[in-house]
């Protein structure tokens, strides 16, 4: 198939970017979206142009590196799919495809389609962990039974890959789904409950500090999340936050 791509090109963080159109030809349906970009980049390099920069690594939908706002949706039109797992059979011959970077104040563009998502790292550093030493002198793993439903629910929240699609999709560029996934995972497990109150306060504070918008429950994040992290996590985080705020002595 042949496509027209309209790609955001931006030399570096300080330059002004623009949309540039490219024609790509003879694209196979079996290709992944990123393989299609590889083909374009090979062509650009051969012609002496600079290839389009985009983040990617594992190409099996788990590392969370790939991003791209494709035809107005993060990770493109397929639900529960990262860009690297999006295949060209989702597009029609002759289609025009817009490709843009994630847009958020907290995710500044580095180059072309690459953005800086280190704000997520800093939010985790603010409290997304259990303060346990790595000494190996912990209690036996089976000493505290955990109800299967809780473990499964914690797992579902923990499958977040930190790609930032929630922020990209949200009209407010809110990071609530990302933050709440980690808060939920740890607040559902007995190991994480101990410092749950401090954690949620610190993580939310850092989130606000990074310049993400607020949640207005549009549900766009949930709909676009490649791992299907649910809105209930945001509600759980609000609950944890309220609890932490009204809790005496803290």
């Amino acid at each position, binding site marked *: 198939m042949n496509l027209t791509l*309209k790609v*955001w090109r931006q030399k570096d963080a300080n330059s002004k970017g623009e*949309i540039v159109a490219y024609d790509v030809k003879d694209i196979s349906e079996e290709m992944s979206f990123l393989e299609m970009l590889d083909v374009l980049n090979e062509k650009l390099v051969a012609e002496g142009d600079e290839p389009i920069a985009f983040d990617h690594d594992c190409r099996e939908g788990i590392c969370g590196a790939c991003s791209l*706002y494709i*035809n*107005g*949706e993060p990770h493109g*039109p397929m639900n529960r799919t990262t860009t690297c797992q999006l295949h060209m059979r989702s597009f029609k011959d002759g289609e025009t495809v*817009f490709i*843009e970077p994630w*847009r*958020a*104040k*907290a995710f500044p563009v580095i180059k072309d389609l690459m953005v800086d998502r280190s704000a997520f790292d800093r939010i985790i550093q603010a409290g997304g962990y259990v303060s346990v030493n790595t000494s190996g002198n912990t209690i036996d793993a089976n000493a505290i039974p955990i109800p299967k439903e809780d473990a499964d629910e914690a797992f579902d929240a923990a499958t977040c890959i930190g790609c930032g699609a929630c922020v990209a*999709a949200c*009209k*407010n*560029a*809110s990071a609530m789904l990302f933050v709440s996934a980690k808060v939920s995972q740890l607040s559902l497990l007995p190991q994480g409950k101990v410092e749950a109150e401090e954690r949620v306060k610190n993580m939310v504070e850092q989130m606000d500090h990074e*310049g*993400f*918008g*607020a*949640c*207005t*429950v*549009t*549900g*766009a994040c949930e*709909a*676009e999340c490649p791992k299907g992290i*649910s*809105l*209930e996590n*945001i*509600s*759980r*985080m*609000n*609950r*944890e*936050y*309220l*609890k932490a705020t009204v809790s005496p002595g803290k």
Partner: protein
Amino acid sequence: MSATGLFLCLFLVGHLAGNLQLFLTGEEAALQFNAYAKFMTTNPAVKILSYLTYFSILFHAIDGIMLVASNKAARPQKYAYSNPSANSKWNSRNMGVLGTIILVFIAVHMSNFWYVMHFGSLPVDSAGNKDLYTVVISFFTDDSMGLIFVLFYVFAMAAMCFHLLHGFKSAFSSFGLRTAKTKVIFEKIGYAFSIVVSIAFAAIPVYIYLTH
């Protein structure tokens, strides 16, 4: 946001209950409504409630404007091409617009009746109460402006309906009450509440226009 929003939902219930009296006709109905209006403007307990309501409206509006502003600031550079309808409903993304329509409506509505009741000089009915009933009826049945007012009121109630459809259930999420189980309940109650309340309110001017 959610606290004032839910409080205003409660206010809507009370306000609607009172206004349903406008569906009654005849001399008796007018007397009853005017007595009710007097009670609502003079009773000390109601006064406290109404100040709370004024405050809620103001807070909800100001907070909303600030929220819209800060959320806009969180994405300084817009997408060149966006397809938001793929992942969210129109009303959930446009609460600010809907809220603004409602705010304008509230201002108009209060100048129409609340201001007249509190500060205007009104004729009194046979029981000696200010005759708000007649003011209301003649407002919507005015030869030149009546129909326009009716349409404006219906439009505003439609905006309120969409605002509530999203706002009601979202408030519970903000309070941390939404879970996989309660989600459906809040959604259903929210839908029923928004539609019933909005239609009932909208029906009042339409009914008056058609029957008087």
